[in-house]
């Protein structure tokens, strides 16, 4: 085990995978000499050369779109979108092409592509940089959607993503990049897709989250514990594939659930969590499941983000309500 933050874990994993498999190439805006605006690719160009770590023209569609062709040629492209919000510029390529090429070709063309993108709030960015838009990619069949919450999972899930035969949208929480350090297994470490992580076990309410919201959920669980409410916290890790059995069981054990995410409420992935749980564990529910999310408004400018992004206080309030209901 080595203690590191998430950016370090991602960087090390990329280096290890590039070392292991020369088909892996990294492409994106400013990923080369600069090492990425968050330094997630720092040192890679120096080590692997500018043919394998490629600074791309400023065109997200061409980044995702050329990754399709690179994959067909036999390479394993790991593309970076500088911010998830700008992946909107490539949305037609990601959902219409990256996600569908295997299906379109009846399995003839595999798409072992990783698209890495930072997202999430609380870091005072200009507009569009912090938007949480994971649900729209869940609605694009053919791509997997992965959202680690810890440095260890960042490594394990990224390793899996690079080796996976399917395209993976790999979401990196901006707020967790440097803030949080944790123990990361040394050497080979993969985390399988579709298995949630039980962060803590508790008896009264199950809090469901992913990515940066997991830390908020944990903080809220701490506060709740101080009030005598015992919470489970689960980290979904991957939205596609979804661990629906694990999720249903985790909620069934307490009969109460609070889902936390940074995206706006309506049609956010929290809705899917609730729909899935009530389909699989309806009879064990003791109270309505609650969502703690951003409101249905655009990500705001700096001074307002503390109100927008779910806080431990807001999650605590929902935990209380949910624990007391019924």
């Amino acid at each position, binding site marked *: 085990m080595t203690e590191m933050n998430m950016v370090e874990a991602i960087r090390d994993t990329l280096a290890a995978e590039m070392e292991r498999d020369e088909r892996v190439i990294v492409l994106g805006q400013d990923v080369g000499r600069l090492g990425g605006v968050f330094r997630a690719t720092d040192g890679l160009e120096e080590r692997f050369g500018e043919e394998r770590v490629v600074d791309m023209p400023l*065109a997200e569609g061409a980044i995702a*779109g*050329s990754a399709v062709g*690179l994959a067909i*040629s036999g390479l394993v492209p790991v593309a970076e979108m500088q911010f998830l919000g700008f992946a909107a510029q490539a949305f*037609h390529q990601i959902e219409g092409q990256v996600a569908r090429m295997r*299906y379109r070709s009846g399995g003839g063309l595999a798409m072992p592509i990783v698209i890495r993108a930072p997202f999430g709030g609380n870091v005072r960015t200009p507009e569009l940089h912090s938007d949480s838009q994971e649900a729209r990619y869940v609605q694009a069949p053919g791509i997997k959607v992965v959202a680690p919450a810890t440095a260890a999972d960042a490594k394990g899930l990224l390793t899996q993503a690079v080796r996976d035969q399917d395209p993976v949208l790999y979401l990196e929480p901006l707020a967790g990049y440097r803030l949080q350090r944790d123990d990361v297994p040394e050497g080979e470490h993969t985390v399988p897709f579709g298995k949630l992580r039980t962060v803590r076990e508790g008896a009264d309410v199950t809090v469901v989250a992913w990515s940066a919201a997991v830390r908020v959920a944990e903080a809220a669980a701490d506060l709740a514990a101080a009030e005598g409410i015992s919470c489970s916290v689960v980290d979904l890790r991957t939205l596609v594939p979804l661990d*629906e059995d694990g999720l249903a069981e985790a909620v069934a054990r307490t009969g109460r659930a609070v889902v936390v995410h940074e995206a706006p409420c309506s049609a956010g992935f929290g809705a899917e969590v609730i729909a899935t749980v009530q389909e699989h564990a309806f009879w064990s529910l003791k109270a309505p499941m609650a969502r703690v999310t951003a409101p249905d408004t655009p990500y705001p400018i700096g001074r307002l983000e503390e109100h927008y992004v779910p806080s431990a206080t807001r999650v605590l309030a929902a935990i209380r309500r949910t624990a007391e209901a019924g």
Partner: protein
Amino acid sequence: MAAKRAENNPSSGGTGVTTPGLAAEQLVEAFRQMLFARNLSERGFILQRQGRMGTIAGAQGQEAAIVGSMMALERGRDWVVPQYRELAAMVYHGVPLVQIFQYFMGAPRASRFPAGTKVLPIQIALAAQLPHAVGLGWGLRHQGDDGVVLVYFGEGAASEGDAHEAMNLAGVRKAPVVFMLQNNGWAISTPLKLQTAAESLAARAEGYGIAGEQVDGNDVLAVHEATARAVARARAGEGATLIEAITYRMGPHNTADDPTRYVEPEAFEPWEGMDPIDRARERLGAEGLLEEGVEDELRTAIGEEIAAAAAAAERSAAAGPEGLFEEVYADPGVRLLRQRSELIEGNR
């Protein structure tokens, strides 16, 4: 690199490039391929009208642009990335004809081509295939493969952002790509003048640092020659070329279209007598390459081949609901497998 102007499209009033680019027997083969492309379009329309096939877009009028370019590639070495009118190019480069019909009949897996076939499936979002072609060419070169990628698109598709992003990237990466822009004057009902104010689309090449040239798209030799030059350049590591083939859509956009709603009859006038097949036949005749009766034999053989493939495609198995789930993911996961069994059971 300024774009060359074609001297022989109706608007400039020329009469055709004369430099021969194809050997005699290749010229006959090109003629045969053009007949094949025409027949395939015509058969497609008939089958659609008979309700035996879905919407299909024909190649009528564009056979020279398609055949001239596809034959400038080396089969098994170079790649074809189609828009949707280039069925003949797909077949020439290894896609079984029966799969073409299966595709339009809506059969699953119709676009899974035999291993080693260097052709991408038809994809429907206009211009989205262009960055794929660039990535593919770049990736081949990265791996020491000297294959060249020929990608087709229309003058309508050329207005999409993807076209710009792809050509600019091709310039930066010196990708071995030939961008074959078939300017057929129409995007469904939208005429060229509402598509762009540019006088030359090949002129866009300069803004990307790639080579550009306009060519008479109804002259199979001229197209072949321009494409062969571009392929040689790409093969030699000199990067991409944008070829604007000036041609004309002689039929409706596709089987769902009714051009009488929007085309003035005059629009066709300058193109009368420009039918690429007629022009190729004249050339063959002038050079004494087409013996009496040969064309009829070719047509008969082509007609039979195409009819047989269509019939075979119709015989292919009906599709059950499990087809929905095939090859969405290499590894579908529990949730999708559950959906699969529920759907299959629910349908029983």
